[in-house]
């Protein structure tokens, strides 16, 4: 269960398993697949890499204990199996046998232990935090790692297994400063290894002879080259020309018609693991309607999410009611739904709650306890994000209909994160979460009174308890029960209003290549290692 930076990142899981369009054409050995992306990987250091392009490359080179399948479920990868015992307080991973690093050294449980400790010691990434719950680690044999946790923590295995890229101890133990280690010559254990990274131009990967998950130990392709097109328009041209065969990157829906008109180009969609929302400051310095549950409810009721999805995202999105994304259907409380879009309803909620346009200027005035002034709220968001920009405009329209004025205030990213996270100086805010993959702790991460991401200022001891119970539940049923409860709380309070789950558009050339599988989120999409090993030239 986890999130990613506030930023753009997005992560996996899927419900509609992307069709693997093997289609006609005999799989052939060899060939070079050219992938388009819009930026260089941030770094080849798998422990600090934190951008989508970085993930594409690093995940092709470095192993994970688990991977996600096309349905968004975590399945064995480097770990053959895992189990949780001792009332959820012990987690044991069993590694595959006979797996080696690309330099021929065998992968052992020591590597797993080492990686975790390195992460935690140097606080390299947000994943370092999951090891806070670790009491001790044991490696009874070369293929077994045992984590003794301080308390039951059902999300541990998934987070650790899926998010942490394992690094070879024999190389990394000599690294002095792992946080600034550039790792120019990576030794991993993925299906590919690095040939060359020409900064700003391309990253060239070549197939290894022996990858544990590949059928004959070897992907069909000889090479995968990522090319960088910082401008999406140029990338689309490159696609059309056949300079690139597949995009790792999402193509905006509006550009799709151009792509679709080109013979051989195939578009597939994959949902984000995160979602977009707008939020309220529940703990403002001065009285404000954002504190008022009724007001938030009215806003949620007045939000035309269909318009947002159809106009703002041109249809490339799914509905979402609570922080639990509809991808994780079994974790969704069917009774906890967001109100239907209904302007009249929203108006009457406000009226009953004492909102009235006392000064006749067209904007409602809040009741005295919430300041008594015009409901004139500043909505801040990252000005560089065109989706948020569109959402903001639609919300502004929606709010106007119920007599609420939103002042759109696109700000620079850095200012935004300072105002939200550091200073909690905002009224409303549009944002987007990258990925939540462990539903037991999604809401804990967001809404717990002590959580770093709870910038809305939700502070409800009862809710805290529910969420803790979910996060540290000893059984799945217990977890589910509490997650349901939390969702119920949520739809009555709406500290944030989830707006949509984005669908990413990915494009590949079905004339030249086959065998693609589609994995959830653009973090994996068509270039998940498990997809790439199946890709073949026609």
């Amino acid at each position, binding site marked *: 269960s986890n999130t990613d930076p506030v930023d753009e990142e997005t992560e996996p899981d899927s419900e509609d398993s992307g069709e693997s369009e093997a289609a006609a054409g005999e799989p052939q050995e060899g060939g070079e697949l050219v992938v388009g992306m819009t930026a260089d990987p941030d770094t080849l250091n798998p422990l600090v890499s934190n951008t989508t392009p970085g993930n594409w490359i690093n995940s092709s080179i470095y192993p994970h204990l688990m991977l996600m399948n096309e349905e968004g479920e975590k399945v064995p990868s480097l770990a053959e199996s895992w189990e949780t015992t001792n009332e959820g307080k012990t987690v044991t991973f069993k590694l595959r046998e006979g797996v080696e690093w690309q330099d021929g050294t065998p992968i052992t449980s020591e590597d797993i232990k080492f990686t975790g400790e390195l992460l935690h010691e140097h606080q390299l990434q947000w994943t370092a935090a999951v090891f806070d719950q670790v009491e001790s680690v044991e490696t009874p044999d070369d293929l077994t790692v045992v984590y003794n946790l301080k308390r039951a923590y059902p999300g541990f295995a998934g987070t650790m297994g899926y998010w942490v890229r394992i690094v070879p101890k024999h190389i990394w133990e000599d690294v002095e400063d792992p946080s600034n280690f550039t790792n120019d010559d990576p030794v991993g254990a993925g299906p590919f290894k690095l040939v060359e990274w020409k900064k700003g131009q391309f990253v060239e990967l070549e197939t290894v002879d022996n990858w544990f998950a590949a059928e004959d130990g070897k992907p069909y392709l000889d090479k995968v080259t990522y090319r960088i097109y910082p*401008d*999406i*328009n140029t*990338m*689309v*041209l490159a696609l059309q020309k056949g300079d690139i065969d597949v995009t790792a990157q999402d*193509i*905006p*829906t*509006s*550009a799709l*018609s*151009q792509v679709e008109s080109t013979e051989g180009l195939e578009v597939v969609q994959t949902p984000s693991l995160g979602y977009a929302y707008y939020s309220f400051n529940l703990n403002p310095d001065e009285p404000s309607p954002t504190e008022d549950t009724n007001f938030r409810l009215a806003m949620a009721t007045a939000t035309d999410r269909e*318009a947002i999805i*159809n*106009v*703002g995202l*041109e249809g490339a999105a799914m509905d979402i009611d609570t922080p639990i994304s509809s991808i994780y259907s079994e974790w969704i409380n069917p009774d906890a739904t967001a109100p239907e879009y209904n302007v009249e309803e929203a108006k009457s909620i406000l009226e009953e709650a004492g909102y009235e346009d006392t000064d006749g200027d067209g904007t409602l005035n809040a009741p005295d306890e919430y300041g008594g002034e015009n409901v004139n709220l500043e909505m801040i968001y990252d*000005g*560089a994000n*065109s989706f948020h*920009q*569109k959402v903001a*405009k*639609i919300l*502004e*329209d929606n709010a106007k209909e119920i007599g609420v004025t939103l002042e*759109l*205030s*696109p*700000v*620079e990213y*850095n*200012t935004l994160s300072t105002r939200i996270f550091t200073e909690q100086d905002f009224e409303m805010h549009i944002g987007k979460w990258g990925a939540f993959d462990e539903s037991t702790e999604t809401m804990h991460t967001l809404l717990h009174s002590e959580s770093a991401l709870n910038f809305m200022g939700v502070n409800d001891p009862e809710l805290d308890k529910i969420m803790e119970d979910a996060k540290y539940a000893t059984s799945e049923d217990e977890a589910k029960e509490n997650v349901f409860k939390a969702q119920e709380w949520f739809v009555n309070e709406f500290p944030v209003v989830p707006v949509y789950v984005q669908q990413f558009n990915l494009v590949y050339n079905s004339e030249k290549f086959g065998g693609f599988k589609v994995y959830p989120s653009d973090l994996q999409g068509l270039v998940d290692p498990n997809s790439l090993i199946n890709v073949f030239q026609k």
Partner: protein
Amino acid sequence: MGQVVHQGSNTNNVAVKKKKGSNLSEFAKNFRRNLLGMIGLFGVIILLVIGVLAPLISEFPEGYGDMSMMLQPPTSQYWFGTDSVGLSIFDQVVWGTRVSLYVGFITALIALVIGVPIGLLSGYYGGRISTVGMGVTDIFLTLPILPLMIILAAVIGTGVSNIAVIIGLFSWPSIARVTRAETLAIKEKQYIEAAKCIGTPEYKIIFRHVLLNASPPILVNIAIIMGIAVISEAGLSFLGLGDPTTWSWGTILQNAQATGVIINAWWHSLFPSVGIIILVLSFNFLGMGINEALNPKLREK
């Protein structure tokens, strides 16, 4: 016209010029003959009219438009087509005229306020003032401005006024240079000495005699700077540093860029680009026209 051919010569006197009206009407006459200049003037006037009358011509495009009309090519209803949220590009371009002109004017104003005094004082007093003034000017002129603007925009934050101010802060050096060059030339004119001789106070010499006579090339430069400012604003917008709440031409282009439709929906980028072209060309032509019409021979080198 054109009587006085070599004015530097010692023997130039009998050449009486043809009776002419004031400087201004003579200028107007010359200007009217300059094709590019007239085109420029015409363009500027049209743009100003569009900018000023924007509220009458079209409605401010807000929120989202017609859901069934997203990314439509130009039709009789949407003259310039629609964007990816179904808003009319025509409306955007009309309002963009206003914003882009605003950026241009603010920039020009700031450039004037900073550049003219620096140029004037460096030119008039020379010496250390000039060493420092022109040193700073040259440095600003040399430094790669766009990266600096980018950094500042990223730090100060977006917003049309911010952008305009930032562009203005970096546009003055050329004004300062022109002003100084003119001032240096004018300072050598005997009428400056004559003014001292008849007891004209210094401030009056600087403003009435120097600045007034230096103003035409400054104006020309201002025209050019306005064009550059609009282009710069578009560039910053393109890099994601524009003001998304208003419709400058740069913002429209940035929308087209970010949604990947520059090629696909040609109308989305064509019309604002044409707007920019018209604006920059008009201001430049206007500047050139003014320059040519101020016949250098009349300006008495």
